[in-house]
């Protein structure tokens, strides 16, 4: 500390509070209120109780809580809610943020130490907010000779593609952002973009260590895409459809992991390799190639890439849950009616809440399982990695395809088989 701390003067304190109140008033009146009015004028709102919903009616309804329930119910079922809040981006980002924090604390406990401790009163809960603020406030340094358009565009494209994979995942029956009939293949198509982003970014960085890291990322991700797709094939064979919601609901007496354990194992290992997690984090191998293809990132670009990586972690864990662990099926533990005898507008739907609850629990369980190898294994070398990806995992996934075909043609599963569903 080079200088002594300043003394506290009450006049300065009051002055700063007055200044703050002044600015809040200016911003709310000049910008906030006009925005609210513009939204309410131009966004189409439903007629409620036979009257058109004007802004003045809207504000008068806010006074009486029982009259706002239809609006909330309407808003929950719009598309924007699904994209932004529930099975969409906010949910994924919240789970991603919780994953980062849990990962640090979980690894710390395994390593006999305390993780983040000082941010927030209870054992460092606000650490992520502190990290986010720190990353926003740092300067973004672009190396000279770097290809600026690609350098800026790639992290944004990375997060966008990860969010696109999240958009395909059904959380509860009927709650999916994009219900496409070829959902599984669309997921693989999106995942095929990630090696491209790694290569583009490393080439655009114009530096040696990212170059090596980008090539390693390319080799690794392409080598593991094939076992990834092959291990999802038996699931399609057993359930008969490519739509992720149908796969989820086709597992109701027995989950597919009981019939396809080898496939689940291969899928798990391939998803660890797609996510560049330890033991497969060669593209970011710290002690050999500084930080791999992320070397030249700084500030918010690094923040965006980390956010994209953890959203992708959630997406792949959710995919594992849907394909092998039964999606949202689980015993109904929520009561069908919260307050028996209520005859007004209902927002609570017990089936949906139950489905979302079980899905979240299972996804968090799979995420914890994906965090475990980080504390146990060292990094693998590139030739051993390629050997494993191209030889061993493809052979293992073929074994399970034959088992699945045998089960279907032997009449045990599938339509007309011994087991229902």
């Amino acid at each position, binding site marked *: 500390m080079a200088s002594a701390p300043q003394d506290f003067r009450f006049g300065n304190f009051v002055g700063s509070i007055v200044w703050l109140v002044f600015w809040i008033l200016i911003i709310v009146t000049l910008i906030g209120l006009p925005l609210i009015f513009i939204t309410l004028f131009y966004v189409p709102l439903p007629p409620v109780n036979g009257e058109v919903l004007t802004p003045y009616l809207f504000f008068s309804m806010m006074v009486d809580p029982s009259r706002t329930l239809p609006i909330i119910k309407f808003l929950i079922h719009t598309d924007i809610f699904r994209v932004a809040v529930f099975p969409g981006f906010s949910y994924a980002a919240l789970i991603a943020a919780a994953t980062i924090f849990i990962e640090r604390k979980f690894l710390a406990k395994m390593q006999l130490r305390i993780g983040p401790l000082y941010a927030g009163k209870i054992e460092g809960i606000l650490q992520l907010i502190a990290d986010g603020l720190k990353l926003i406030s740092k300067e973004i340094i672009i190396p000279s000779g770097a290809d600026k358009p690609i350098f800026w565009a790639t992290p944004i494209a990375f997060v966008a593609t990860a969010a696109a994979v999240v958009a395909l995942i059904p959380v509860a029956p009927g709650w999916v952002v994009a219900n496409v009939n070829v959902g599984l293949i669309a997921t693989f198509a999106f995942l095929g973009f990630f090696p491209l982003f790694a290569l583009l970014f490393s080439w655009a960085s114009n530096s040696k260590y990212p170059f090596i890291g980008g090539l390693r990322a390319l080799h690794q991700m392409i080598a593991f895409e094939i076992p990834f797709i092959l291990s999802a094939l038996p699931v399609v064979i057993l359930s008969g459809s490519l739509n992720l919601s149908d796969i989820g609901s086709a597992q109701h007496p027995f989950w597919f992991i009981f019939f396809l354990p080898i496939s689940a194992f291969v899928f798990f290992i391939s998803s660890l390799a797609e996510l560049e997690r330890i033991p497969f984090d060669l593209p970011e191998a710290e002690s050999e190639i500084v930080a791999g293809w992320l070397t030249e990132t700084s500030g918010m670009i690094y923040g965006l890439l980390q956010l994209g990586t953890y959203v992708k972690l959630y997406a792949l864990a959710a995919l594992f849950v849907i394909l092998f662990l039964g999606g949202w099926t689980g015993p109904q533990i929520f009561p069908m009616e919260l307050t028996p005898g209520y005859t007004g507008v209902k927002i609570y739907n017990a089936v949906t809440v139950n489905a979302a609850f079980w899905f979240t629990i299972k996804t968090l369980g799979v995420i914890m399982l994906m965090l475990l190898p980080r504390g146990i294994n*060292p*990094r693998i070398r590139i030739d051993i990695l390629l050997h494993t990806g191209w030889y061993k995992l493809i052979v293992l996934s073929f074994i399970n395809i034959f088992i699945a075909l045998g089960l279907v043609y032997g009449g045990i599963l599938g339509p007309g088989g011994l087991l229902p569903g």
Partner: protein
Amino acid sequence: MTDFEQKVDETMKMGLQIVKETEEDRLMTLSVGPQHPGSGHFRFTVKVDGDYIVYCDPDPGYVHRGEEKMSEYRNFIQNIPHLERPVIHDSNNITYSYSLAVEELVNIEVPRRGQYIRALASELNRQVYTLYWLAIYGIFLGHSTMFMWPTGDRELFIDLLEALTGARVTHAFNIPGGVRNDIPEGFKDRCLRQIAYFEKRLVEYEDIFYNNPLFRQRTEGVGTLSKEDAIRLGVTGSVVRASGVPFDVRKVEPYDIYNEIDFKVQYMKSGDSFARSMVPFFDMRESCHIMRQLLDKMPPTGEVRTKLQPNPKGPAGESYKRVESGRGALGYYIISDGSPKPYRVKISVGSFRNMLALPFLLIGSKLGDMPSIYWSLNYWPVEADR
């Protein structure tokens, strides 16, 4: 041409080929420099052809502080605080060798209890250094748990050393004539309890790191140094013991009371990176046995230090003594001209000699093997630069 001239000719041709290929952009030059998470205070340049290293040039000298020259301006006792700084976390070994050399020059003898305490401090420091080395080896290979566990267990020994010497890392404990203070109360029980707990921890290290198939795949067969090459290059310490030569200064030229202690020299025959990382692990186990024997056999009472005049000086002469430190044979060669300040102090460290094996092993290996070869050579940059 004679054999030697033929070898020179071949080396020149290879060097010119490398220069030509670099200019054609076929080889890429990477500077694994001081600003690199995988190198420490040391720089080496490698030229890479795809994934294979074809040329390596170590570049030490970033931490040179002139320890040897500084020693000529201070008297024999004032030299201790700065001479322990080259390897500060193994400080009891680097001052042990100095004290032995000065005692020979000034012609004094250390009492027996002092010798036992010196050996105890030296063994404790050996554990501290080896655990730190193991921690960094883990993180170089990407195993963050293997970084945290040894660093945590090192606390057990640092705690003991702090009770014994008064400071956690900068001990300044050995001086010519003996050690500076006696063992405090309750030390022996504490020491035995913590050593017993540490031996249980070593079993955990074996489970999660040494028997981990991923670690074995990365280090077995990598950077093999045969027995003849090891002797020819002059490497020392755990590197030469991993290549099949059972050389340990404590057994070959026992100093102080090491001829009364019963222990086996740990060595392995394969000479690859895996052997070089297992030998310090066996050394740590052996060190626990040695510490137990030292605590048992120590004479219960006695002096720990010979009284010296404030500015000790001896007749003109020279002396050379060496000691087994965590990295190998560490020797001091001191020339005195009859005054209280030494005329010349030459420190011969194990790290500098192990550095010779680095280009020899790196050329021809893959880039992914670089961290495991480099750090398994037990190289501490600050000590090599003095």
